[in-house]
């Protein structure tokens, strides 16, 4: 990875869970549980998106209660900007379940380094080299 100047960072680096990661969390994934358990003690946030949550809950409805019960998880709204970018990505071929993850994980004013997408489906992002992806085993 490139060198990162911490003095210019607005928020600390963190991750974004896509729908596959949310489903893995609901299935008892140890890595994610560890991530969230430690986050709660340090006021660190782990993000997901409105569309990722929608996709995961559509597949496993009871998951919504689990996500809602975990304070470190913050859901990024489908804002005008996110919806616009996500719609364009979907028109260009990405599955809707992954679109807002890509839109919100790109480098931005808020997160100059972007957010790292955590997923069990890294192949879904191979066409989007602009985002970082961590393969959840």
């Amino acid at each position, binding site marked *: 990875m490139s060198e990162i100047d911490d003095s210019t960072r607005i928020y600390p680096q963190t991750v974004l869970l896509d729908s596959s990661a949310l489903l893995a969390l609901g299935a008892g994934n140890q890595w994610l549980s560890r991530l*969230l*358990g430690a986050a*709660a*003690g*340090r006021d660190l946030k782990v993000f997901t998106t409105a569309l990722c949550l929608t996709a995961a809950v559509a597949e496993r409805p009871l998951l919504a209660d689990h996500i809602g019960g*975990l*304070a470190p998880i913050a859901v990024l709204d489908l804002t005008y900007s996110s919806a616009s970018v996500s719609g364009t990505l979907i028109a260009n071929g990405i599955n809707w379940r992954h679109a807002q993850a890509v839109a919100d994980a790109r480098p931005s004013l808020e997160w100059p380094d972007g957010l*790292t997408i955590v997923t069990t489906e890294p192949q879904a992002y191979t066409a989007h080299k602009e985002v970082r992806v961590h393969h959840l085993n």
Partner: protein
Amino acid sequence: MQVRDRLAVLAAERDMTMRDLLKQLADATPTQAELQQRQAETVAFIRVHLVPGFNDEDLAAGEEIWESIHSGTLPVIGGSAA
């Protein structure tokens, strides 16, 4: 701009007093006791709903994961590592 001057601008823009602004900022920042309480509740939730055997070793492993995220050593595909 000095911190006090900046706070005065922020308060004026929000039609608030500096005291109210400082209270809002303080309320949004958890104390260590509140963080400990939040972690205890999160761990309890994880044990009941996700990983029954979750323990202090898992919390320590979680700290190492965050260290790898913050230091840029978490294995990733794409982005600046591409």
